[in-house]
């Protein structure tokens, strides 16, 4: 019985917290945050998996995480654009981008 890696526990906690936040919160921005917390848990898991390979960290999970970070940001940015549009539409038209 070896001691668990603290980062493995953190990855599991990120996954659980992301799931909890996504189910419980209703504000769209908070849901996007929760999805990103979950995604970070997945990235952490992949990074831990990459360390197992003897002879250095496995570059393939690393490449997948790098791809994942960019995809997560672009998907979140699109989600944020939809949030802006959605939460603005209920209030009729008011000009500028700032309050």
């Amino acid at each position, binding site marked *: 019985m070896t001691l668990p890696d603290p980062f493995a526990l953190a990855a599991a906690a990120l996954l659980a917290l992301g799931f909890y936040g996504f189910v419980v919160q209703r504000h769209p921005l908070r849901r996007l945050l929760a999805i990103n917390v979950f995604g970070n848990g997945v990235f952490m898991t992949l990074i831990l998996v990459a360390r197992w390979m003897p002879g250095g960290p496995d570059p393939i999970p690393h490449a997948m995480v790098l791809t994942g970070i960019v995809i997560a940001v672009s998907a979140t940015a699109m989600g944020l654009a939809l949030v802006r549009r959605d939460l*603005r539409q209920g209030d009729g038209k008011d000009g500028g981008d700032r*309050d």
Partner: protein
Amino acid sequence: MILFDGVLALLIVVLAWRCVTAGDLYLGIVVFIVMGLMLALSWARLDAPDLALAEAAIGAGLLGVLLLSTWRALPGHRRQDRDHPPARKAVRWLAGVASVAFGLVMAALLHALQPDEDAAGALALGRLTEAGVEQPVTAVLLNFRSYDTLLEMGVLLMALIGALLARTPLAPYGAATDDGTDSPLIPVLATTFTPLLLLVGAFLVWAGAYGPGGAFQGGAVLGGAGVVLVLCNRLQGAPEAGILLRLLLVLGVKVFILAGLLMLPLEGAFMAYPPGLTYPIMIAIEFCLATSIAVSLLLLFTGTHGVRVPER
């Protein structure tokens, strides 16, 4: 170092908890950014300096700016939970129990999983000399699994188009009447930090061939330089994109496909590069990708079709 790792991991978990449950939405966003930085630190500890750079630049930096600017653009009463209250108490308890169970199962699985003998990464590392670059992650991204990267650029472009379609009716296009940009220190920020950011971004792209860095990290820093210029009111969104900007936007995808197709008759396969030319082709592709990523991220921030220098 186990103490440091333990404290870092605990900090990440506490920050994630605060991020998800913070009473104030603004606080939640700030905590999310701090969590991104702590994640970057932990990934640097986990032999992944490339990903630490990417997370610090993209996951914490640019995503943080996007989240904060969206929060700021929301009408005042939509910034908090009043119209979107959290789920009922029973649902909260149920979700809590379910996520604790889920977390425990994941922790047990992660602890029990055994490394596989024939990982694809061993194959990639074994054939690294054929890839043209010394950095294994760059080799995987641009050579061994270049299809993934090409499609990823496609996803980035699609997300940008979607975001622009959603935000076009909201865009102000006027001269920014932003508070704070008349501060005497803003020109210092614009003139001192932007060239340095451009330099660091270009260096990161170049360094991707032999060390931590690459098109995504460098592109994010280059895009960040653009964001700084927009915040300093040296650049602003424009309703129409010039042809040059459009070209830069699709440069990465185009050059990637072109390189793949041009080598098709020579090598007999799409995206197979001849041995002698691999290095220059990959550097060229990398710089084109970084340019497209930078422009895409900048336009995702401004939410407009183009950018222009404001008249003063």
